[in-house]
């Protein structure tokens, strides 16, 4: 909808959507329990959803907790996130699932939907109790961080999950081909003397899992797609009508392996930053709809894992608090329209998770107010995440979340007066 409206929110729900003149300005004074948010110049969109984040709790609370992760999500404009199962213990059983959901409720910021493991302990050997986890509240399964290397096990996992009607998120990586590499294989990895990860490490698994999806008639969602070959394979599969969806992360349409600063581990993530051609292919894939959605792959790490030798550093960067600003550049550059972007950051994720975040009367009031014109410089010291591992420090960006509302409650509001990312009012 492209119109100027007032929205009345009552008891966590969208009560009414009305024309601006409908609400009497004096109305506010009449009842002190009514709180009015001035959204002039801002754009109201359905609450953004990031379906790929690592919250690290339980087990690695020194990197991130559910509380700090959800605070980061709220600040980034996300009313809902899906957290990956590679915690310690792994979320491969209903107890861990329940713990995450319980903690998320206690925190009361953005909503968290856990994603369970496909295989027990993420070991790629035997199936986890997926039905039991689904009963407890998982919305999908993945072995994210690791591939399911055994093709037959992957086939059975897809069949099993199809029967349970639960989506499978695929971390596409042939770890034999990746061969313990640390950055994209190419002239830059040769220059720095860093072992490379070829594009094919991703695309051979994408091609394999498209084949397995077609074999089993089960849907497959590919995480963090980074190469032109993968995108082309997905494009062709979609043309054939295969049940394939995929996501990419902001760093893959923003940076390339050329940008990797001298052994700066904040540029190390998996899959790695690829070539210029791959970055271009990611942007084209977003534009033509091959890439369904944007997710941050928020992967907090402490200095213990990052302030070390490049090949020994952990993979991953934080993304919740930079994702929207980086994605808005696609709009400013004319690669996507704003509605298309919102589709990829709010509607498509909701569709995959089978949840509803429409702005309509009676819906839960999960809403994001975007300030498209707000220019600022990314400053990791202001992050609400516990970790600071970002390659975007010092980057000038335009546009961010002005306000995030989860279930009718303001979970984040930028200090508009200071123009910066001030503290929560």
């Amino acid at each position, binding site marked *: 909808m492209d119109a100027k409206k007032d929205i009345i929110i009552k008891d966590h729900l969208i009560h009414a959507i009305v024309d601006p003149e409908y609400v009497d300005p004096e109305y506010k004074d009449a009842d002190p329990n009514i709180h009015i948010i001035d959204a002039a110049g801002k754009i109201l969109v359905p609450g953004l959803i990031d379906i790929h984040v690592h919250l690290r709790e339980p087990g690695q609370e020194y990197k991130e907790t559910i509380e700090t992760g959800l605070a980061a999500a709220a600040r980034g404009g996300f009313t809902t996130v899906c957290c990956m199962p590679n915690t310690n213990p792994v979320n491969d059983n209903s107890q861990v699932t329940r713990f995450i959901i319980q903690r998320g409720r206690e925190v009361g910021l953005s909503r968290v939907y856990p994603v369970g493991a496909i295989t027990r302990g993420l070991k790629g050997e035997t199936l986890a109790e997926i039905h039991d986890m689904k009963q407890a509240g998982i919305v999908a399964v993945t072995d994210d961080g690791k591939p399911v290397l055994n093709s037959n096990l992957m086939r059975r996992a897809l069949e099993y999950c199809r029967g349970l009607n639960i989506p499978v998120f695929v971390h596409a990586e042939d770890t034999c081909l990746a061969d313990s590499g640390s950055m994209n*294989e*190419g*002239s*830059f*990895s*040769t*220059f*720095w*003397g*860093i*072992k*490379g990860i070829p594009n094919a490490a991703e695309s051979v698994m994408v091609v394999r899992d498209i084949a397995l999806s077609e074999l089993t008639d089960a849907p497959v969602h590919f995480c963090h797609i980074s190469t032109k070959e993968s995108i082309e394979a997905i494009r062709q599969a979609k043309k054939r009508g295969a049940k394939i969806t995929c996501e990419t992360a902001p760093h893959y349409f923003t940076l390339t392996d050329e940008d990797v600063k*001298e*052994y700066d581990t904040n540029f190390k993530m998996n899959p790695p930053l690829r070539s210029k051609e791959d970055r271009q292919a990611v942007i084209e894939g977003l534009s033509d709809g091959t890439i369904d959605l944007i997710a941050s792959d928020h992967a907090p790490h402490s200095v*213990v894992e990052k*302030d*070390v*030798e*490049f*090949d*020994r550093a952990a993979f991953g960067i934080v993304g919740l608090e930079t994702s929207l600003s980086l994605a808005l550049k696609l709009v400013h550059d004319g690669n996507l329209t704003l509605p298309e972007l919102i589709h990829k950051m709010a509607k498509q994720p909701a569709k995959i998770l089978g949840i509803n975040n429409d702005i309509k009367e009676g819906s839960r009031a999960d809403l994001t107010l975007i300030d498209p014109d707000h220019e600022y410089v990314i400053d990791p010291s202001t992050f609400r995440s516990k970790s600071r591992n970002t390659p975007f420090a010092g980057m000038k960006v335009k546009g961010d979340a002005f306000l995030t509302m989860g279930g009718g409650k303001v979970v984040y509001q930028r200090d508009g007066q200071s123009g910066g990312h001030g503290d929560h009012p």
Partner: protein
Amino acid sequence: MRFEKKDILDIESLEPWEISMILDTAQGMKEISERPVKKVPTLRGKTIVLFFQEPSTRTKLSFDTAAKRLSADTHSISAGTSSIVKGETLIDTAKNLEAMKPDVIVLRHPSSGAPHLIAKRVKASVINAGDGIHAHPSQALLDMMSVREKKGKIAGLKISIIGDISHSRVARSDITGFSKMGATVSICAPRTMIPKGIEKLGCTVSPNMEACIEGSDVVMMLRIQKERQGSILFPTEREYSTLFGLNRDRLKLAQKDVLVMHPGPMNRGVEISSDVADSDCSIILEQVTNGVALRMALFYLVAGGSRHADSH
């Protein structure tokens, strides 16, 4: 011009004039090792730490000898004896070393970029004695010194480098250095050992060994690591030797006054035949001799030369 570099991390970061200055200084240092008393007081009172996180005989002894001939005090830490085995991070170890006020830290490390990581954190000069598969600047500089000494120049020469380019920090530094100084570099190896985009460092990839060697002024053989035999990179030393071994017949394709080089340690009968290794065109042992002079020059330039002119 004054040599202002604090650290010697790789060849990329050195300007051609800096390379020339290092080679000139090293040439001057060479004579010290010929004296009956092989010691000068230049770096008296300076402390040099040899921090070797990877096994090394030749390079470590060469740096140690170089430091002692300049009267510096040297201390040695190796992989097995450092606190790294107790779980200390490289940066913490480096900061602890720094607290003892060394003037130079010589670092060898299995991770590419490790010297760059600590150079930013310590006041001491850092000299890279080999990092992962990235760089081995002192080796490339001594190679350039040895070639220049014999040929009187580097520019215009044809240099061939044959061997495991993918896993060789020596190859990367030599390709960069020789091409920076105006030589033409061609490389040859099994295709499994040629990394993507190596041409961008300043070389061409030859289709076979004969084409690579033809007309060369310098043939540099790299050590083929025995542990790679039977891996997925090549089947046997025998087959490797057949395709990429340097022998008399192949050497005939090069210039008559060709120089044969090898950074050591050699596998005789694999990448190089014994008769070639011991022939008159081989300057393999002179490389080792020059290594000491070259490392003396590096110490002098970063710790005792114009950078610290006021202390003399």
